[in-house]
């Protein structure tokens, strides 16, 4: 390369923020420039700092929600001296083992504004984080198979539109136009149509955790991996800090965002929760050329599916149904889910299941989450996400950051209270009642 070429490259690198001391921005130009110099310039996506003795705010849980909380605390609420405490490696919980669906097709007033707010945050996420989480608005189609299901979807679609979300009802022919190879002619429960939310979609789940981690780190948040919390320090009804595998850390406020392990962590504060831990399995096939453009859910069985950018069919269904902290499930649910798949998509019979795994869900008593203060002053709780936590990541982080920063619920999350069960305000989308494994 000529002298002038090198000089102009240097100038370009500088303008892209590539010089020691300033945060590194990702861009196509940066990628190009790094390719030319053998990628030697990439720096760690986040630091691995030593824990400090004291922070203003601790977020327990380095999953999507915890990292998002830290990012928004730092970027929107001006918080300083924030740390995220992670038991293992960040993004290792449910954000790293879900089926990546993002949607806001909820029915109830307590939920829909929150999820629609989340969807709007998703729509600007990559620019906000300077990280491509591959959020792709490919649409979600909820199939219906009976008149009463259709009526329920009309009610839901209208609720969505009243809250400013998008929704459309598609008849059987419309479904056929979108997915001509679905089982229209030999189905036990014939497809009558579907509720379509076009703005829904999928994202690259790991990248969400990494993007938030990197963005939070850039604003000074300490991300402390391998830092399991072993105790909560509570004095006179007020939290003062935590004990960790890397020593005690003092803090004024502590937010807990450890869905899947909520009961275990909150038990350290002597609190029982309206939550059970259950295993939800998820599945991916070998990579295939594009077949399924958006997300499709089966209305007469437990099955939903999308296709990843790598080509794998990513699908799931119901939870196994028994309490579990083991990140694995059993064959009956595998069969149940795939039977559902073969019922509406007999064309996937020769695709091969590559991998199945399980995540531990905080299943709440009404199927909806909790973002609230607790009886312990300075201790805040975020959990009960059931198997809908991934799509909620941005709004959950924002709402939890809002609560931690202001002591007030975020306007879109006012219904997610701990006392709603005692007071009779459940947010029960399925109408299944206070039985966690039915949600």
């Amino acid at each position: 390369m000529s002298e002038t070429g090198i000089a102009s490259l240097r100038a370009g690198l500088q303008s892209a923020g590539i010089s020691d001391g300033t945060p590194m921005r990702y861009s196509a130009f940066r990628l190009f420039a790094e390719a030319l110099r053998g990628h030697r310039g990439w720096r760690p996506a986040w630091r691995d700092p030593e824990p400090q003795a004291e922070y203003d705010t601790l977020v327990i849980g380095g999953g999507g929600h915890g990292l998002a909380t830290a990012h928004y605390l730092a970027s929107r609420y001006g918080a300083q001296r924030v740390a995220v405490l992670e038991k293992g490696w960040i993004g290792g919980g449910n954000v790293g083992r879900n089926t990546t669906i993002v949607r806001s097709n909820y029915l109830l007033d307590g939920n829909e504004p929150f999820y629609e707010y989340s969807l709007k945050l998703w729509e600007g996420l990559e620019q906000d984080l300077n990280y491509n989480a591959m959020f792709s608005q490919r649409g979600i189609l909820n199939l219906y198979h009976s008149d009463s299901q259709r009526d329920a979807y009309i009610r839901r679609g209208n609720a969505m539109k009243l809250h400013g979300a998008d929704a459309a009802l598609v008849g059987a022919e419309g479904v056929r136009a979108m997915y001509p190879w679905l089982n229209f002619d030999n189905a036990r429960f014939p497809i009558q149509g579907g509720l379509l939310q076009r703005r829904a979609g999928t994202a690259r789940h790991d990248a969400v955790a990494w993007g938030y981690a990197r963005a939070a780190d850039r604003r000074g948040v300490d991300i402390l991996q391998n830092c399991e919390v072993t105790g909560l320090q509570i004095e006179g009804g007020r939290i003062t800090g935590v004990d960790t595998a890397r020593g005690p850390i003092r803090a004024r406020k502590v937010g807990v965002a450890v869905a899947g392990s909520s009961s275990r962590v909150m038990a350290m504060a002597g609190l029982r929760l309206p939550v059970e831990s259950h295993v939800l399995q998820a599945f991916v096939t070998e990579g295939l050329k594009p077949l399924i453009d958006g997300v499709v859910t089966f209305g007469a069985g437990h099955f939903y599916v999308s296709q990843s950018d790598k080509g794998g069919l990513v699908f799931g269904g119901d939870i196994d149904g028994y309490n579990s902290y083991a990140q694995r499930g059993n064959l009956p649910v595998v069969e149940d889910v795939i039977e559902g798949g073969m019922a509406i998509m007999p064309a996937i019979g020769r695709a091969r299941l590559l991998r199945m795994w399980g995540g531990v869900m905080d299943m709440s008593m009404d199927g909806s989450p909790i973002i609230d203060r607790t009886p312990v002053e300075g201790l805040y709780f975020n959990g009960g996400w059931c198997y809908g936590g991934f799509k909620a990541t941005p709004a959950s982080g924002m709402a939890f950051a809002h609560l931690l920063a202001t002591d007030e619920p975020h306007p879109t999350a006012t219904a997610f209270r701990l006392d709603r069960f005692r007071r009779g305000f459940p947010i029960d989308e399925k109408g299944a009642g206070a039985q966690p494994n039915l949600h």
Partner: protein
Amino acid sequence: MSGARLASGGQIDRARRLEFRFDGRAFTGHPGDTLASALLASGVRLMGRSFKYHRPRGVLTAGSEEPSALVTLRSGARAEPNTRATVAELFDGLEATSQNRWPALAFDAMAVNDWLAPFLTAGFYYKTFMWPASFWEKVYEPIIRRAAGLGALSGHDDPDDYDKGFLHADLLVIGAGPAGLSAALCAGRGGARVILADEDFRMGGRLNAESFALGDQGGADWAAGAVAELAAMDNVRLMPRTTVIGAFDHGIYGAVERVADHLPIPPEGKPRQTLWRITTSRAILAAGATERPIAFADNDRPGIMLAGAMRAYANRWAVSPGKRVALFVNNDDGLRTARDLAAQGVRVSAVIDARADAPDPGIGGARHLPGAVVTGSAGRLGLDTITVRTAQGREFRIDADALAVSGGWNPNVHLTCHQRGRPVWDDALAAFVPGADLPAGMAVAGAAAGTFSTHGALHAGHAAAAEVLEALGHTPTAPDLPQAEDAPVNLRPFWHVAGKGRAWLDFQNDVTVKDVKLAHQENFRSVEHMKRYTTLGMATDQGKTANVPALAIMAELTGKTIAETGTTIFRPPYTPVALGTFAGRSRGRDFKPTRLTPTHHWAEAQGAVFTEAGLWLRAQYFPRPGETHWRESVDRESLAVRAGVGLCDVSTLGKIDIQGADAAEFVNRVYCNGFAKLPVGRVRYGLMLREDGFLMDDGTTARLAEDHFVMTTTTANAVLVFRHLEFARQCLWPGLDVHLISTTDAWAQIAVAGPKSRVLLQRVVDPEHDLSNAAFPFMACGDITVCGGLRARLFRISFSGELAYEIAVPARYGHALMERLMDKGADLGVTPYGVEALNVLRIEKGHATANELNGQTTARDLGLGRMVSDKKDSIGAVLSRREGMMREDGLRLVGLRAVNTGSRLAAGSHLLERGAQAVAANDLGWVTSACWSPHLEAPIALAFLKGGAGRLGETLRAVNLLSGQDTEVTVVSPHFIDPEGERQRG
């Protein structure tokens, strides 16, 4: 042409020739061949393209761990993408196509990605494609999606059948190599119930691939003898072509048997594959080991394969891999390949051994280069030469069209990890071996446990089985095992050759040493981060050959030991499984069972249209000639009920027989309204709450005797309510004398509804039963006989609001009773009606069904709040009184009537005030059920309306934003018809 069939040897049937095609070209092979062995024997090296860079790919392995030689097998609706050529059993007429290339395997335009490789490093996509935001879905992602994926599905329904089944054993032996065969022989001779499963179509494992002897036999011959002995035992089930895919809780193993994959198509009625769930007390994992490569620049060329695989091709399939073969190894085992090839007359040109003190295998004509490494390769679409650097640092080229590589072996520990188990690093073997926390009942033997010698495997298998026998109370026989090689593992860990080029770790996903280094540089250092960031190990082979070298390199970079670095978690299935196999017969129309009503065949003969109600099929309406729209039929049926008499099969309602001294007390506790004082011979409407106070179900319950009730449930909730009642009976009040049994299927129950229903019934009910209003008033019930003595039950209940009955007879007589009623009522204009008319009639009467009882509503919402008794402790009563459920502005069931009878009113519409903007803040409720009322000649509906009780007479809008409907409605009582109930009492 590189590879060729050797003149003799191999476990193939040379007497028979099998024709097959690859990419349209005709080839031949023999029974016993795989697609890979037959192609190699035909001189074909190029079989596929890699995922990302579209690099040419050949065969790396000889087994199910193959990452590279993936093809689409078969064609049309039977096309099977991503099939490993290395395990595809050859059959006559086999058709295979290469994939992930365009336009042709040898000329792939997407190979341009290889030139762009400097930009396409690990995680490059996270750093770009962000501007402008809308371009992601529109521009960038479609390109990525089209380029990604490997093979394609046909888009047609899978035409084959799949079975599922269940097996039980004392001992499951997984793998039929030396350890597995030895274990099965020991356990089988000892009398245990044994299942021996192996993924290969020929049992024997490595014994079929090696040249050494067992006793005075060849290894393959000894294996064949062992298999023959086992096959003769009644207590042993041999399952070749069966992969054990996962170890699940409590001794359950999933296994996939490929029943017909070695045939052109499955025989009629037979499955392609069977999913077995094997329940066993004990399992012995004897799954062998997988060889791993050594990474060096351009180590991915067709012609470069694992040493053990090359040996297998030579020994088992009599395939010479090339004309000039070189070896690159770091262990003694790899040297066997040189010896075996030389013995078969294949020219071995060089043995490059990374160990400075490597023993000389003494191959005539081969250069022995201890302490040397391979630094690169060259050749278009296949290997021509390799570059070697000697211990002294001298670099030169060697001509070679085949290179065997061995970096050592990894025990196949996968199944030991399916339940939290973590393998542990063994420095002596330089491999992960099973940890201590095995699934309950599992033992590991042979190479899977790190016992690599044949002698060791035979003895370990026997010992493991003997232990199982003793635990089960059998007496093991003394070992009767042949002499076998007992070579120690002699290996120096060596993972990659340092250098500038790209050195592949994950051959399918194109992950190189550089990518791992980049992951480290960017702090993706935990093994899970590395895997997810680079996609290493996430290809169809799940990193069976790639994972250990990669984490060894990460360990180098972080300065940690491999033991500290750890490994990612192995998850089921062991190898990928067709989705159809998991579904079995439960697909298409057989997805779920179908329940038919007792009058189904009669209704079918009448030309009824059916609809699903849960698992039931129910007559929806009965079209008559000339009726062109369903509404015509439904209107006619509804009006016929109101004016005359109609018949509807209501057998689908759940029926629960409740008997016992405490039956009344029990019913009184599970319904929120009073039942204790219900007189014998009477029916009452009951509301059942969940314990959280929301409505669970409703129905009528009849008291047939002091100690005998019959409860009906809604069709949808029959199973749920029965479960709930058993919970209450067994768990809450175990001291009550009450007994439950379902009788849903035992009775054919027919609603006879309309002003002429009594007249009609009198014609079939035996004359001694008085049906007069005085003798059998509204809400009466009783045992009767019909048609000359047939036992029956009669209930005077009404869903339509008309004078009505439900008559029940033993199910087998339902069909005949329906015919009789139709016959006897001909002069009354008797009309069968379906669930559509049933729905119209109940909406007109204001009765709730599933649309109103959706699990989110309360008795109060239905306007039935006063039914919740506060004088007794019934399920749900306490929590039904929570603050949030007692709001004055809460929802209330109302009727709606369209102001303009020509307008449309859809269930699901939301209610808004006139002039109010369509936003959530103005949402007043929603329409639960809607219909055209032929009786009122207007669209009507039931709806939940905020503060509804106080809004009767108001005009609101029912808005459906999905269809643009905006309909003015008047709020009215939900009882459109006969609010005083005079008709049903008449």
